[in-house]
């Protein structure tokens, strides 16, 4: 007991990126401004700097991920950190180790930053209570995916100059979406008006309390919008009787040129990926370089994650 108490006593107050909900406006501005400087770096000939040299970053992904994991890995490497991605499939977690034991094991290796994705909401919060380094949430359950929202904000700012005063529609499976929740918090904080559009079975309880208007009629929800954020509809939603069929969903909630006409002429289309073409979005719209900023989101994602790594790593 005495040893544990001693450990607790030396544990410093840490700064973690667990969710947009915990961030202040100035923290968000700081991350976005920092990220802007990295956009140029990422386009230059030599993409590597050394502000995180000597630092260790561990990516702990309990859920499969392509873009987020590679984005974080690249971000860490470009800043000069030593990046280790844990392969959960072969790890002790599969042998029944609890998250806290895993955390304590990793903590003993003195990482400076742990990036975690977990299927359980609140897992990064739990982890952050047990380790001595910064924890960055790369998506937990249906709760938050803060870096995705930040990169979405950066993309909007890059194209529209600001978020304030814009009208943003988030469409699709809001119920199961951490991207939707983080974006609702962030876009509200930055002064946008947010509409959520979904069939009633995919709208979370009391969603209006988060400061949004909800719509089941996509055309009404898109009316006058500057930004149309589409969400991925996971195939398994068809089985839980959330929806009758993909066909019916596409008819009423798929983004088609006809429905997009309700939004502003220069409205941008966003999607966190991976896309289901023909389920939630018309394939031509997804590739329309004048409207779709989907690839730009991926590009700016690296810059935003570099900013987060730098800011949260160096605070500690």
């Amino acid at each position, binding site marked *: 007991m005495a040893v544990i108490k001693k450990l607790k006593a030396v544990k410093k107050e840490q700064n973690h990126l667990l969710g947009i909900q915990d961030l202040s406006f100035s923290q968000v501005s700081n991350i976005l401004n920092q990220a802007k400087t990295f956009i140029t770096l990422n386009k230059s000939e030599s993409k590597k700097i050394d502000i995180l040299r000597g630092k260790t970053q561990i990516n702990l992904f309990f859920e499969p991920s392509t873009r987020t994991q590679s984005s974080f890995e690249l971000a860490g490497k470009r800043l000069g950190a030593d990046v280790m991605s844990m392969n959960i499939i072969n790890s002790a977690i599969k042998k029944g180790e609890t998250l*806290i034991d895993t955390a304590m094991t990793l903590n003993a290796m003195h990482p400076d930053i742990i990036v975690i994705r977990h299927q*359980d909401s*609140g897992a990064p*919060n739990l982890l952050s209570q047990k380790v001595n380094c910064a924890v960055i949430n790369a998506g937990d359950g249906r*709760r*938050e995916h803060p870096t995705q929202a930040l990169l979405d904000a950066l993309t909007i700012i890059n194209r529209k100059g600001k978020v304030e005063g814009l009208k943003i529609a988030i469409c699709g499976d809001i119920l199961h979406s*951490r991207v939707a929740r983080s974006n609702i918090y962030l876009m509200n904080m930055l002064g946008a008006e947010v509409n959520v559009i979904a069939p009633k079975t995919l709208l979370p*309880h009391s969603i209006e*309390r988060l400061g949004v208007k909800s719509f089941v009629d996509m055309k009404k929800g898109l009316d006058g919008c500057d930004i149309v954020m589409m969400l991925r509809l996971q195939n398994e939603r068809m089985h839980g009787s959330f929806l009758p069929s993909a066909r019916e969903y596409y008819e009423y909630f798929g983004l088609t040129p006809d429905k997009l006409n309700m939004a502003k002429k220069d409205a941008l289309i966003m999607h966190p990926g991976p896309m289901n073409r023909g389920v939630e979005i018309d394939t031509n719209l997804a590739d329309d370089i004048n409207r779709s900023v989907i690839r730009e989101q991926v590009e700016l994602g690296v810059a935003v994650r570099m900013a987060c790594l730098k800011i949260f790593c160096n605070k500690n």
Partner: protein
Amino acid sequence: MKEKYLINARIIDPKNDMDEIGGLIIDSKGQIKDVGKKVANGNIPSDADKIDLKNHALIPGIVDMRVFVGEPGFEYKENFRTLSNAALSGGVTSVVSMPNTSPVIDNVSMVDFLKRRGRDKSLINIFPAATLTKNIEGRQMTEFGLLKRKGIIGFTDGIKTVQDPQVMSRIMNFAGQSDSLIMQHAEDNILSKNGLINEGEISTRLGLKGIPFLAEKIIVERDLSFLEEYFCRYHISQISSEKTISVIKKAKDEGKIFTTGVSINNLSLNENDIGDFKTFLKLSPPLRTENDRISLVKAVNDGTIDVIVSDHKPEDEESKRLTFSQAATGATGVETLLPLALELYHNKKVKLNKLVASITCNPAKILGINKGSLDKGNDADLCIFDIDKPWVVNKNELKSKSKNTPVEKRRMQGQILKTFVKGEALYERV
């Protein structure tokens, strides 16, 4: 045993409509010989023990209808000895033990084991419940008649609900003939599947799957429909939402006879207390909104709800130090039941005699036991407490083997001073 004269007590015995300053005589067999203001200071025989209670409150020993003991199978969470100590320090002298053990209590031989362990290791009265269905599978009813004859007080699947309506209707039909008590945990498994907390704004914000109030209401409605056709002694273990209260009120107005319980947790806490994923507040039924809590408190005061239980469910720290969805469900409570209930009295929300009735004579009546009152000739099971004494909950000072209290650091008003079982002071606060 010498006769004991407990004097200068505020005696509260809701069954006998008594709330007066007086005394209580415990005879040489540990039973109540006399009680009330007529037991005065003056006429105490010289060979009797005199205990001056200094105007503190004296109530019948608390009867807690819903307590989980770890025996058999989960002794590391709680055993009869640790449960006894915890209960005594909470003024609880009789408990109904839930059958969700390993193996479960679903056959006669398990009852023998329980009775033996209860007798040897327990200091309080254990009234064991058996499962409604074999192995809590919700398919085949247990032997109500035989189990009852062996000493089973009532039947419940504890943390589970019989889902199949046909099985439930037959259970109620059959229970009627053996006069068996059915205690239903009301939760539709499909509606609450993978659910973790109340469905609402908090579940949306925390990204946790919600348990809708409908999961509870729909089972209560179903069972009350059955009750009309198949009358039996039917008790709803715990309710959690305002909407369920309306259903119960309506059924009582229609003349249906049944009883209802509520967990002290749902009277003292709400979903906001879950905060940043506090797994100690992962409970079943879940904590709901403040509005629900207020409605439940009112329902206790107006008699719609008959019984308050602790829903004492010890869980070791390891099974709580997990992500919210992986963490075990339940909280300890037998030690804090009365102090938390007294909050409702101090806040002027529930009358004191109603509160005391809901933890003494009401449960005793439902169970059909000679407990929960100060009737002459009853065992002298007593709880003596200082109604105003302030204190702060500290989990390390609690006696339960598990430390998963939902009210750590809470400021309480009202503290248990002495607990008597069969005339013996088995707990005394030093």
